[in-house]
């Protein structure tokens, strides 16, 4: 809004209250006036939303026109004479304010209501009109309160719900003075299909929809002690937000205008902030009582878990942990130790953690949960195109004509990213959704490929076959930018859509249509998630998607490319920082001589030249007794490992398990030392989202009890492992990181403080960051991409007579990463208190199964929804 007029943008000059005023191309009278410092009251107008012009408070008088005009919707014309301060315009806006003040009296509105503010400015103190009929309050939602006596029918919530977030829950029903904001079919908000993104709360100018004070039935107060600009701690979208804080408690959260969210949030970002204030928080260092057995066979962490531990001073706990690890290293060699970092911790913490393992432990036995999510994607991407990161940012869908979402459920896992996809579909982009389950996005899709589970490669090869068969392959791109096309062509020769259709259960005609749509469009982008990567053939799945994109020439331009949707808030950054066993920071291989030389010199030490063990291998090694000591920071393998029994057994056999966390997790229950750490809002650090944006989170709360900063804890353990470290502040770690990582060399701490978010690759201080990569070459030795063929492999377990169904794991919108945080958030747990199994309703009827029945599987049981 306040950007200076660029000379290259065509401007219109008109007259505003007798003064010349310049408008940029596409600007309304209102926008031009505000930029010129002329205030015009608005209510139904909200920056970023489509102007609707219904409240009629921004009316201006235009010479020669019979009636007044809404400045929010009118474009100025050259020479147009506009008056904001004419008698007619003033009288009109005052009366509109007076009408609205009678409908929504001051006492019903929130204290910082836009209506109250403008009414006061215009001198409208009391209304001469009677109040309208009272509407009952709706407090049915755990997180939000609805008071339609404060509603002025401006429709901002409707636009927010429908046009911004595309959740389509709020409507405007009935008409005239009976017209009313409704949820679904005039249902109470709490029982409606509302997904609680809270966009309406943020949109409402008067407080008709307000966040509740957590856990109470009262509205949260608006006046707060301080506001801290930070990030959402949940998924990989990396939404920017503002914490509103009083007395070291977060009262409510506002979405901030970050590049990945543009003020949007989802239910987790909006309401999931109170986990940090949960009474379960670890606040004192704990040491396992001598001889207290580690019982790996448990369902939940027992209520009396504390009985296994005694409180200790920090000094004692750190000695026990650090000196204990050092002893194992010295007695059994560097590879007898391993460390799990976390994709929930900051870049600085990830960097320092892997440095501790590589130097302090002396091996590359460091990994984190990326192994269980996108490691297969990263493997295929590194092999094919030389980089594991996304080629384009999510918001690039605005330039896409075709959006192919496969094996991902972004409305639950990446809700704000999903909003951009839905926006694009509304704009007219073709959305193709491929998933064995019909997901929420399907309603917006032009094509839904509901293929049989485990037939991904068959489907993708059929698409590739159709592209080649129908002459839609991009010959020139293949020639100039790729290697090995013949191998792909030969590999899919037998995979015609007609041949694959019976396998994958999608009609051949549909496969061909989608292939044509994808290959012919000006820009096609592919998004995928765990549905693609979590298979025995996960890497093959991704190889196919890469091939599809490359042979169609759909990469390297705005709106077209490959985007594996990153799950955790910092899984990209943690991997970038080297929190993986085969890579130093910036994906330099640990067995690459150049990399070894660089890092041995940089860290002034000698390094293990062999890749370390992965998450899964470490568990195996622990149960064999090869790994004897572990340091786990912010991860919960005793809950997140796919084979829980095996993982818990392995952890229980360790000589020493050091767990650094904020809650008594399942893993902590098996620990020898528990170090109470800080939650996301209690520390400052950088986080890298799925879009390759390095973003700054700022400390908002003081940690509880004796809980300490994670960086401090790592540093203390390092000292006990013989390292003379003195990292006191995150910026010191970050500055060291960027010296060792070319991709972020141009991102200084000062720049982050000023810009909050910088996209990498960013080579130097003048580089704005590169949102689209692979424009003219791939970061491989030849500069070309390699096409890697994939054959059909079946899953290890197929349905049989006893277990005739395939169980596909998925996510609930409200919950995230073992629930350690989300189950401790009041609103999130209140909305979705249980995990459930979903089946097709016809199948439930056929089986005579009622909701709530437990469904047994080879791997456990779960209740049906």
């Amino acid at each position, binding site marked *: 809004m306040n950007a200076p007029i660029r000379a290259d943008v065509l401007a219109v000059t008109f007259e505003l209250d007798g003064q010349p005023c310049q408008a940029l191309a596409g600007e309304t009278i209102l926008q031009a006036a505000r930029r010129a410092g002329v205030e015009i009251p608005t209510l139904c107008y909200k920056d970023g939303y489509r102007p609707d*012009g*219904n*409240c*009629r*408070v921004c*009316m201006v008088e235009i010479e020669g026109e019979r*009636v*007044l005009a*809404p400045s929010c*919707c*009118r474009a100025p014309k050259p020479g147009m004479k506009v008056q904001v301060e004419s008698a*007619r315009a003033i*009288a*009109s806006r005052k*009366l*509109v304010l007076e*009408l*609205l003040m*009678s*409908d929504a009296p001051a006492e019903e509105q929130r204290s910082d209501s836009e209506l109250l503010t403008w009414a006061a400015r215009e001198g409208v103190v009391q209304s*001469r*009109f*009677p109040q*309208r009929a009272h509407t009952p309050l709706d407090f049915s939602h755990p997180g939000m309160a609805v008071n339609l006596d404060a509603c*002025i*029918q401006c429709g901002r919530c409707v636009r927010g719900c*429908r046009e911004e977030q595309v959740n*389509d*829950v*709020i*409507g*405007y*029903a*009935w*008409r*005239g*003075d*009976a*017209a009313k904001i*409704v*949820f*679904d*079919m*005039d249902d109470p908000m709490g029982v409606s*299909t509302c997904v609680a993104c809270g966009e309406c709360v943020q949109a409402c100018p008067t407080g008709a929809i307000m966040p509740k004070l957590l856990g109470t039935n009262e509205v949260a107060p608006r006046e707060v002690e301080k506001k801290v600009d930070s990030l959402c701690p949940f998924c990989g979208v990396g939404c920017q937000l503002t914490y509103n804080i009083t007395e070291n408690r977060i009262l409510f959260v506002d979405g901030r205008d970050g590049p990945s969210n543009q003020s949007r949030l989802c239910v987790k970002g909006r309401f999931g902030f109170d986990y940090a204030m949960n009474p379960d928080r670890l606040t004192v260092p704990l040491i396992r009582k001598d001889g207290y057995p580690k019982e790996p066979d448990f369902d939940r962490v027992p209520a009396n878990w504390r009985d296994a531990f005694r409180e200790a001073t920090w000094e004692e706990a750190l000695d026990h942990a650090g000196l204990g690890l050092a002893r194992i290293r010295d007695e059994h060699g560097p590879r007898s130790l391993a460390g799990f970092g976390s994709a929930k911790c900051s870049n600085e913490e990830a960097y320092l953690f892997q440095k501790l393992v590589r130097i302090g432990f002396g091996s590359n036995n460091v990994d984190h949960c990326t192994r269980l999510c996108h490691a297969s994607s990263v493997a295929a991407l590194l092999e094919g195109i030389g980089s594991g990161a996304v080629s384009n940012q999510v918001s690039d869908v605005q330039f896409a004509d075709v959006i192919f979402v496969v094996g991902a459920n972004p409305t639950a896992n990446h809700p704000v990213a999903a909003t951009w996809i839905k926006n694009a579909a509304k704009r007219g982009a073709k959305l193709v959704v491929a998933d064995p389950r019909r997901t929420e996005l399907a*309603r917006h899709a032009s094509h839904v490929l509901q293929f049989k589970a485990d037939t991904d490669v068959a489907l993708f090869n059929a698409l590739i076959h159709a592209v080649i068969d129908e002459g839609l392959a991009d010959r020139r791109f293949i020639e100039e930018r790729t290697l090995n096309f013949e191998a792909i062509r030969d590999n899919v020769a037998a995979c015609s859509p007609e041949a694959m259709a019976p396998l994958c259960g999608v009609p051949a005609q549909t496969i061909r249509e989608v292939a044509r749509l994808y290959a012919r469009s000006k820009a096609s982008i592919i998004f995928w998630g765990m549905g693609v990567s979590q298979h025995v053939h996960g890497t093959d799945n991704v190889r196919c998607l890469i091939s599809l994109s490359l042979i169609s020439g759909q990469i390297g331009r705005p709106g077209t490319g490959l985007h594996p949707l990153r799950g955790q808030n910092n899984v990209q950054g943690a991997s970038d920082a080297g929190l993986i066993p085969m890579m130093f920071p910036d994906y330099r291989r640990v067995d690459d001589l150049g990399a070894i030389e660089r890092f041995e010199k940089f860290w002034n030490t000698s390094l293990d030249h062999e890749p370390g063990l992965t998450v899964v291998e470490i568990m195996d090694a622990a149960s064999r007794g090869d790994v004897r000591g572990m340091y786990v920071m912010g991860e919960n393998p005793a809950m997140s490992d796919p084979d829980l029994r095996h993982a818990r057994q392995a952890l229980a056999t360790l000589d020493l398990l050091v767990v650094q966390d904020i809650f008594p997790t399942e893993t902590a229950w098996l620990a020898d030392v528990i170090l109470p750490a800080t939650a996301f809002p209690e520390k400052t650090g950088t986080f890298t989202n799925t879009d390759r944006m390095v973003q700054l989170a700022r400390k908002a709360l003081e940690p509880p009890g004796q809980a300490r900063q994670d960086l401090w804890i790592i540093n203390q353990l390092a000292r006990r492992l013989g390292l003379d470290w003195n990292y006191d502040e995150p910026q010191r770690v970050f500055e060291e990181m960027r010296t060792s990582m070319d991709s972020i060399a141009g991102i200084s701490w000062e720049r982050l403080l000023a810009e909050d978010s910088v996209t990498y690759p960013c080579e130097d201080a003048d580089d704005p960051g590169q949102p689209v990569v692979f424009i003219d070459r791939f970061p491989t030795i030849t500069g070309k991409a390699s096409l890697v063929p994939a054959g059909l492999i079946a899953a290890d377990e197929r349905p049989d007579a006893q277990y005739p169904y395939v169980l596909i794991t998925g996510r609930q919108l409200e919950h995230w990463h073992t629930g350690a945080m989300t189950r401790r958030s009041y609103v999130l747990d209140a909305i979705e208190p249980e995990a459930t199994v979903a089946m097709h309703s016809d199948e439930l009827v056929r089986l005579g199964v009622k909701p709530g029945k437990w469904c047994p599987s080879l791997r456990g049981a779960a209740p049906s929804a």
Partner: protein
Amino acid sequence: VLALLGNLPRRPDLLVEYLHLIQDSQGCLPVEMLTALAEELRMAQTEVFEVATFYHHFDVVKEAETRPPALTIRVCDSGPCAMAGAEALLPALQQYADRLPVPPRIQRVPCIGRCAEAPAVVVHQYPIAPATVQAVDEAVRGNRRDCPLPPDALRLESAMAEGGYAVLRKLLAAPRTTESFESLCAQLQAAGLRGLGGAGFPAGRKWQIVSQQAGDRILVVNADEGEPGTFKDRHYLERRPHQFLEGMLIAAWAVDCRSCYIYLRDEYPGIRHLLQAEIVALQAAASAFASADGWQLPEIHLRRGAGAYICGEESAMLESIEGKRGMPRLRPPYIAEVGLFDRPTLAHNVETLYWIPEILSRGADWFASHGRRGRKGLRSFSVSGRVADPGVKLAPAGISLRELVDEYCGGMAPGHELYGYLPGGASGGILPASLADEPLDFDTLQKHGCFIGSAAVIVLSQHDRARDVAHNMMAFFRHESCGQCTPCRSGTAKAVHLMQAPAWDADLMQDLSVVMIDASICGLGQAAPNPMLSVLKHFPKEVASEGVEILNPESNR
């Protein structure tokens, strides 16, 4: 729902049509069926719900609620019907209904276009006017529910025999050229043909504007006649539907519109059945309309309103045809540029199109030769109220009220003396008897704060009070406001309240009127204060003194 929809296309723009399917088959809209409909149309529940609740002819019923009675008896309570005793008829009918074994629902409704035979009642869709309890009882017992086809309608065969479509066929014989198009526009201009829905925009000029727009053009016919006191379109459609259809096709040909949409108010089911049949007949006879340049009959879509006065506002009408809530659009852009389905749109009232074949065959001079006091052309006055012979009166533009009553309506009804009149339905204001010699036409009454609009003239006598009529009209506007903009949504409600006071607060009413006129989005809100302002200006005695009571406070819905 699946059975009801059958093979019909799953298009959101057909939502209102599909809601009718459910309402007709169930007698209401159960929300569970709305949920199913939303699923089928790939719409959100609330998108269906907000449309369903917008229209008065849909009865949305939630799971826990009881369905409305199978039979609904609608009683018009707008101006002329109220003057003819609707307020007394309502409780009488309610008493009658309560005595029946299965009591029907007695529902107040706004104008149903039978003002000359007031008071009017509809038993399901069977109209009775003038209505008595006895006449209603006969219809209920006789199981009369449907609206009969208009008996006097000239059907296609007879119309052709009488020379119908001759003008169109003559035009089709020669290729359309810029010259021939300009000549047609010139003839309409010379005849002085203006938009007879009420806005009075010159028809030929409109053709020129729309024809200059790039892209596929659409013609939309506004047959949503709803201004209280107006029934002229019904009059013509019931008698000479093909003269109107010919006019529509001439316009479509001239402006090169490939499809035509007729938006017909749901209160005219007889006309709907008639037009359905006649459009089918017309399409079957398409070969008779071979043109020199390969032009073909456009698609003709007959769309059904659902009880919403506001959908007579042209942009609200387009929203409704698109299957949405009938909320007027902001202008610019004008619908000539961005109209139905975002395409350039030519919108005409039924009567405007009706005169086109006749003007082209009899010559522009014929039409323009009529007129008094310097005005040109013919106007179809819908006359109701206290005159001896109400009805549609085709009279010269510029005629005075006194002349209209004396020459065309057989004078005042026995026992009634002229007290005042409404020159243009609910919107056009109220004039006193002292201004009965003013010329009635577009633009002639502005100085008195009035206009003729659709030329719905309601005549008041010494037995009427202007304030009662004004209050009735304001209650109508409140009921019919779409609820989009503050001045209209809130303003009409506050005005109704203020008008119930024995002595009116003139200052506050003036302030309120200014914002409604200046800041409402569409003509409804802009014109709504007119009756109130007219009372203040021309009948101040009625509202100045203490102790005056409102006759029918219950008419405030």
